[in-house]
């Protein structure tokens, strides 16, 4: 693979206003999904005992809802900090896949843009950008980066803003409302639409069953073991291609 940045591409690698505007526009519909989760995280974090500064800091520097909720859940269960971080990290491992998949479209992008881009690589910015790159294969690198940053910056701003609203709202909700069960409802809502096909269903079933059986293990370690077993189980199901061979 040719890795030398060629001159013309280098020059084109200025993020364009045109691309950025298109990204902002494309992000509007997904804000409907981002905002409620930000609200929920803000409310739950404050209910769990985090201060508003801590809640805001988490949403601003982690910018990954599911992992934030997972870490929060483990903190409230008094798991060690390391386990909370590890679990959040495992939840975010899917982003390595996004990183590899989107990097192919950003060849010869200067390092400073790559470092910035990594901050706002989320489910939304990845999904919308990849969709755009497939539909408009001739677009310049500057337009492509602009689009990504348009989606990424808007969704992240709304994420942080919604967290703030949730946190201030959460401060007014008296404790003991049984809000703790909102976390699993949120996770079920995220995962249910993904449960397609035998391999995914098996991975989910194995992970869920083992997690219940191992829930007595100290420090929330059962969760990590169960997740690893689930991934392995899904991986062992032959793909349709292998099956037909």
């Amino acid at each position: 693979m040719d890795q030398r940045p060629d001159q013309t591409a280098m020059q084109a690698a200025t993020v364009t206003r045109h691309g950025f505007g298109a990204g902002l526009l494309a992000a509007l519909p997904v804000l409907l999904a981002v905002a409620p989760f930000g609200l929920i995280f803000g409310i739950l974090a404050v209910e769990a005992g985090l201060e508003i500064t801590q809640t805001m800091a988490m949403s601003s520097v982690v910018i990954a809802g599911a992992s934030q909720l997972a870490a929060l859940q483990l903190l409230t269960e008094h798991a060690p900090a390391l386990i909370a971080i590890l679990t959040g990290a495992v939840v975010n491992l899917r982003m390595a896949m996004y990183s590899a998949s989107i990097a192919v479209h950003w060849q010869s992008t200067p390092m400073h843009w790559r470092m910035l881009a990594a901050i706002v690589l989320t489910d939304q910015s990845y999904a919308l950008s990849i969709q755009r790159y497939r539909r408009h294969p001739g677009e310049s690198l500057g337009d492509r980066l602009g689009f990504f940053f348009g989606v990424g910056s808007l969704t992240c701003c709304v994420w942080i803003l919604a967290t703030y609203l949730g946190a201030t709202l959460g401060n007014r909700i008296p404790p003991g409302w049984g809000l703790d069960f909102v976390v699993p409802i949120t996770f079920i809502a995220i995962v249910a639409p993904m449960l397609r096909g035998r391999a995914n269903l098996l991975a989910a079933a194995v992970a869920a069953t083992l997690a219940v059986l191992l829930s007595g293990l100290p420090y929330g370690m059962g969760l990590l073991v169960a997740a690893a077993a689930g991934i392995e189980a899904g991986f062992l199901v032959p793909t349709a291609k292998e099956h037909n061979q």
Partner: protein
Amino acid sequence: MIPDWKIWTVIAGLAVVTYLIRFSFIGLLAGRRIPAGMTRALGFVPVAVLPALIAPIVLSAGDGSLSADPQRIITAMIALAAGAATRNVLAALVAGLATFLVLGATGL
């Protein structure tokens, strides 16, 4: 009460690790291809981790022991069914929250 140092440690640690995951193939390993097997394994991460997080909470009594609380179990089933049927995260969330509230209000 969760100690302050612990909250800040988790925030900082999760931020750094998450940034490194995001930056992995964009920057650290730029130009390298991700092995096909790894892509496939990573695809199973959400469908394994999230159910592993969910199941014990649905079936827990809050003190580490298992219990079958109808409000929790029915809510989970409805949210799951709504998400699977509509393929829509928001629809599943609304269905789950509504079920939980209604069951709570009726005292089930």
